[in-house]
């Protein structure tokens, strides 16, 4: 009898506690109602056109869906096929990692250093240099020029140049010989890499408090590199984070460069990336279930590398 009484009592207090917590949450929400109003327009569009499609796509990855018939649930079969049957997928994962590991960090460092150097120039020269450095991202004819440079006959700029100087005896097929394709693509990707991150760094450098530099000189900062590490970089940590995430998303999503220059599929799949594989199944074969499974795996890879990079960035200036 006694036992039953205490249990009822306990139940009562637990319920009360939960009720109180809910009440506290509601008052907290009410207190911030203006904030919810400010977020609402963005949230509505973002949920409709980003979150729901992403969730739908993850759901579709467990189905067979050819866009004509209703999706058919097949469990993990798409994933099993990707890893056990589809050799080309594994090739594409390897290529994606090679491209991301080479171009990601180099592109990020280049964008940061260039932005930093340019920021110290006098305003007029500075504005001109920013335009020049951002040029590859503005001009749409990016692939046109690289097609001419890497053209496989003696008339391509690179072949013509190398033949002239006697460095090679016959023209190399830069974009169709698997021995050269990867390096050609790396050059093009690096050349295009001064994009969103670069502009954010340029803007971020404007916000660094000038008095901190004066304090730094007094405290005995000796050269520009110490100034960069101890003052500039810690002050623009939010921008560094932005640049890093942009760098992860662009370097793991390389696809246009390979498809435009080397074709889809490229010779021997030498520069076939995960997104190329995704385009192949999603836009050409219309196997949306399989394409969604590819997208989901890339998603997981990108989230993990993003976590790693965020941990690295915490060490800046320490």
């Amino acid at each position, binding site marked *: 009898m006694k036992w039953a009484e205490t249990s009822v009592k306990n139940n009562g207090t637990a319920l009360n506690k939960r009720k109180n917590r809910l009440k506290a949450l509601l008052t907290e929400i009410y207190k911030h109602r203006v904030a919810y109003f400010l*977020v609402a327009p963005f949230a509505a569009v973002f949920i409709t056109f980003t979150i729901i499609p992403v969730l739908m796509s993850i759901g579709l990855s467990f189905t067979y869906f050819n866009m004509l018939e209703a999706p058919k649930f097949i469990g993990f079969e798409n994933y099993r096929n990707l890893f056990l049957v589809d050799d080309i997928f594994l090739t594409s994962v390897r290529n994606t990692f090679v491209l991301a590991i080479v171009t990601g960090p180099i592109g990020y460092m280049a964008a940061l250093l260039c932005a930093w150097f340019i920021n110290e120039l006098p305003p007029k020269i500075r504005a001109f240099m920013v*335009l020049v450095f951002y040029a590859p991202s503005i001009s749409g004819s990016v692939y046109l020029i690289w097609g001419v440079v890497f053209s496989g006959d003696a008339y391509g700029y690179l072949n013509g140049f190398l033949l002239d100087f006697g460095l090679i005896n016959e023209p190399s097929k830069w974009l169709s010989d698997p021995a050269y394709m990867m390096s050609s693509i790396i050059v093009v990707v690096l050349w295009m890499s001064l994009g969103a991150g670069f502009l954010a760094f340029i803007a971020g450098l404007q916000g660094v408090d000038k008095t901190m530099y004066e304090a730094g000189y007094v405290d005995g900062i000796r050269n520009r590199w110490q100034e960069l590490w101890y003052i500039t970089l810690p002050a623009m940590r939010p921008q560094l984070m932005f640049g890093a995430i942009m760098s992860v*998303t662009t370097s793991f999503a390389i696809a246009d460069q390979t498809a435009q220059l080397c074709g889809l599929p490229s010779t021997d799949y030498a520069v076939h990336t995960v997104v190329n594989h995704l385009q192949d199944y999603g836009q050409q074969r219309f196997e949306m279930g399989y394409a969604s499974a590819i997208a989901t795996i890339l998603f997981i890879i990108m989230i993990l590398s993003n976590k790693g990079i965020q941990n690295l960035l915490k060490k800046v200036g320490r």
Partner: protein
Amino acid sequence: MGRKKHKLKHSIRKVLKKRAPNRSLLGDVFILIMLLAIGAFLALPLVLVISNAFKPLDEIFLFPPRFFVRNPTMNNFRDLLVLMSNSWVPFTRYFFNTIFMTAVGTAGHVIVASMAAYALEKHGFPGSKTFFKIIITTLMFSPVVTAIPNYLTMSKIGFLDSYLSIIIPAFGFPLGLFLMKQFMVNVPNSLIESARLDGASEWKILWKVVMPMVKPAWLTLVIFSFQGLWNATGGTYIYSEELKTLPYALNQIRLGGIARQGTGAAVQLLMLIVPVTMFIITQSNIIETMASSGLKE
């Protein structure tokens, strides 16, 4: 002559004086030369586009290809004008469509993203951290696969074949919110607090206090957004000819065959002029804010 020399010496001395105290002259010169070399390499496509637009037909098909134009001509532009006047839908219509979508999309994106970024960064309401984490996470998802769910959604809510299909999704690009929020971290909370004590509404604090302080951020966002929307073809979402965009119309001209290679080059130059002008104006504004800022905690 002597006076000019003297003036030059004077200005050089001024530049040298302005330099930060912990820089070596040799380092500065070395870095400048390196920047110029990289810059020349990066600017190649711009130079090629400009040069190609003024090339006569026989130079465009010259082998080996020549980078710079030798006998510049305006023929390509004249041909383009003729082609434009022949098109079925008046060309001004394409132009209006693109300008309209780009302007409204960019303005909306900046406003909507700034509002949300301010609330997320400076209010810390229940659920704000989770929401921001979701935004960052979705940046990692490949847009290739979301295109089809998006198409289905748009057909359900009736956005297909209207300006809305381009404009409304642009308001909610996660990139803009992320950029704005990262810059708002540096706005001192004490400043917002004192504005609040003075009786300013949240709306007023955002537009009169926070936004002027993050001017470089939203100017940068204007560049991204403008560039993306300017090049939007509307491809899968818009089918009515009179709603199509400039890039679509100009692509049609460019794809018109070998004889149109010259006009194609002219088209590329025209498509570039607006974003580049926009970029130059915005960038010079970012530099101006450097002089006016200095409001810090």
